[in-house]
């Protein structure tokens, strides 16, 4: 293949896996797309980039940033070049995530009931009980179909040798799925006919699978149960996602103030009186869900919700208390869980992780801080991280002090060289680091993973942080049919 202007200066890092380029040529799965893009002039591609921005803006796929009292609409940056996953790669990912999710769900059932895994010494009791997301309220409470994690967004990364690693398990209220759906719609508009030519598998079935699972959880035996999506409200940065999912599933979008609990049943306030609610897909964190049980200052939740839940009068999705399983300190034990519960070898690897609560490991990490990423065990969104390879001496010293105050709250991982993928930047293709979040749905019929996901991309050159709160963007994610 000729290298055109578009591909000139596509310099991949020597020790980084590039999704498109294998040091000598363009990988097979990217060839059609690269050919397709090369037929456009730089001016046309710039126009397409502009068009993508306009489409996001006009559809209101935005979040509001408040500064000096006025709301400003922002879009999550979108890169126009899709990320491509081959059929064999996807098969592997699918098997790995299914296995992991099964084990994590069994772990939740176990720690909130008999706790075999603790008694057998596989997971230390201290780690479970010291997790702030461990909820005593869940103990001994049988959730419908033993499913705790109805929706999981497990993050994957690819290291320099091309193998996939699990970065973290998001089992509480994983977000971003609307971007999986909308990014695909935008690609259809930007590059007509490109998708069918490449045999890309569709992702549009996601809302209907989720809806089917929600219906099946209804505690009332009724043909038409009332399902609601509970949102913190229009000022939440993910509000667009909440409305999109509610609209695509045809369920009611409610705020905490729309619900009321009476005699351990949940009702919504309608223009024709109270209507009983059967299933709540909540996008409000545990902590704010019920002011009678958790944070009593919360206005986002519903007083009495937990009692209705524990009585079995309403189903809550995802279950409360899941945070104990995606705690970054528990993460280390997931491979052991897989062996313990499933008697299988883990398909997807963990990133090696050091528990800073453990003295020996802490000393090792302190010695090698510049090659480590240190994270808080209960933060997400890329907040409170220390990237050892870029941190200054004094930042490291300060962080050490923080760690020593409460070592249980920290873990460290060697810096993983996230793989790179081509992004369209200033008229050129340039490699930027990416990760992958596929969305797994767990219903009474088993686990289904929609072929696709959210590819997050670190838009700054050389950056390894893909979180949207830290200057990350996203890409349409293609899974090719065999």
């Amino acid at each position, binding site marked *: 293949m000729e290298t055109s202007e578009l591909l000139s200066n596509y310099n991949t890092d020597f020790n980084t896996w590039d999704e498109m380029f294998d040091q000598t040529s363009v990988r097979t799965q990217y060839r059609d797309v690269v050919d397709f893009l090369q037929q456009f002039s730089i001016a046309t591609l710039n126009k397409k980039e502009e068009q993508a921005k306009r489409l996001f803006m*006009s559809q209101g796929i935005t979040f509001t940033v408040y500064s000096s009292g006025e709301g400003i609409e922002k879009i999550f940056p979108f890169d126009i070049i899709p990320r491509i996953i081959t059929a064999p790669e996807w098969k592997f990912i699918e098997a790995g995530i299914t296995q992991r999710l099964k084990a994590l769900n069994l772990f939740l059932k176990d720690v909130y009931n008999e706790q075999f895994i603790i008694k057998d010494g596989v997971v230390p009791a201290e780690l479970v009980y010291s997790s702030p997301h461990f909820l005593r309220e869940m103990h001994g409470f049988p959730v419908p179909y033993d499913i705790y994690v109805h929706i999981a967004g497990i993050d994957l990364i690819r290291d320099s040798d091309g193998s996939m690693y699990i970065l973290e398990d998001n089992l509480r209220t994983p977000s971003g799925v609307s971007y999986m759906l909308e990014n695909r719609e935008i690609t259809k508009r930007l590059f007509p006919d490109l998708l069918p030519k490449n045999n890309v598998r569709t992702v549009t079935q996601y809302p209907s699978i989720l809806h089917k699972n929600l219906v099946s959880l209804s505690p009332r035996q009724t043909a038409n149960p009332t399902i609601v999506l509970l949102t913190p409200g229009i000022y939440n940065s993910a509000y667009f996602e909440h409305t999109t999912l509610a609209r695509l599933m045809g369920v009611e979008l409610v705020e905490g103030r*729309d619900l009321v609990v009476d005699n351990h049943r949940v009702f919504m*306030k309608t223009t024709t009186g109270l209507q009983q609610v059967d299933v709540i897909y909540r996008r409000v964190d545990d902590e704010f869900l019920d002011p009678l049980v958790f944070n009593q200052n919360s206005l986002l939740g519903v007083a009495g919700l937990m009692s209705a839940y524990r009585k079995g009068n309403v189903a809550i999705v995802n279950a409360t208390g899941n945070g104990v399983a995606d705690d970054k300190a528990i993460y280390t034990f997931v491979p052991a869980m897989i062996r313990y519960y499933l008697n299988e070898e883990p398909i997807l690897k963990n990133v090696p992780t050091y528990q800073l609560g453990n003295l020996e490991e802490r000393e090792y990490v302190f010695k090698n801080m510049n090659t480590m990423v240190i994270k808080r065990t209960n933060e997400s969104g890329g907040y409170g991280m220390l990237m050892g390879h870029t941190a200054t001496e004094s930042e490291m010293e300060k962080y050490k002090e923080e760690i020593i105050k409460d070592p249980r709250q920290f873990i460290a991982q060697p810096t993983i060289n996230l793989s790179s993928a081509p992004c369209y930047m200033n008229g050129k293709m340039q490699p930027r680091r990416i990760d992958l979040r596929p969305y797994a749905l767990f219903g009474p019929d088993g686990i289904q993973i929609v072929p696709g996901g959210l590819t997050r991309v670190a838009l700054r050159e050389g950056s390894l942080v893909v979180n949207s709160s830290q200057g990350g963007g996203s890409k349409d994610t293609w899974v090719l049919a065999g």
Partner: protein
Amino acid sequence: MLSRVADSLFWMSRYMERSDGILRMLKMNYASSQDDIHDFSWKPVLKIFTYLEDEACNKLAFQGRNVLQYVVTDRENPNSVFNLITLARENARSGQDHITKELWQCVNDFYHIIRDERLPRWLQEEDPVTILDDLIKQGMLFYGTADITMPRGEGSWFMNIGKYLERGIQSAGILDVKVSTIKNSNEKGADAAYWRYLLLSLAGYELYLKTYRGGLEARNVVEQVVLNNQFPRSIAYSISRLHIYFKRLKNEKNAHSLSQIDFLIGKLASKVQYSTPEAIIQQDLHLYLNDIIGQMNVIGTAMDEKVFSYL
């Protein structure tokens, strides 16, 4: 439908209608100001459509372009088109899963247009009629999209109730601006020109020409804008549509709580139905219009208390 969502749709619709009324009123007054032989005073507009104190009104009264900018884009003016569209969009967002995607995009697009940072400068430097027409067209798109895409049912009923309640108030307000102007001027010819702009901005000029012979007369304009049931911006028409959509809300469960509002609307409808232009003018048009606006506001408050209040 959730009470909160019903409330949001009602207000989204009211804010859209109000911004439409304000834009039309501005267009008419601007056109009129270009004909006036004296300095055109914007004071009645400011008195009726903003919350400015007397002193501030007097200051702005003869600065047409600044008035346009204040009423259309000013962040500090709670009733500016900018703020109304922002509120309409917030309400649309809050009921987003109950309006069609098309309608949401329509409100969202209007929001991005009204936020264009070049707009205040254009209002100062360009032809205001072109700018106001473009904005009015955004509102028309909203009406058309609502009509063609919104399913008939509670959601559209609440939107229509909001729309016609607000339209009645706006038409009364627009007419009232004129009444205040008459008191300030004795120019006979200018009067006819003003009525013409009023009718043009309400899209009622052709209807007037077809109905009446012999020029523009206050009596006939009052008859058309207040009493003509065939004129879609008349007060009588707005009230009768309001009544029709309100009746659709009724069912066995809520009949009791709605009967009081039904009474209020019925009372207002009869007041208008049994009025004549002569009687209105004789009794004082300004007082008559203010009484109507007052009664409309009472209906709005009652909607809040009886229909939207959560529980």
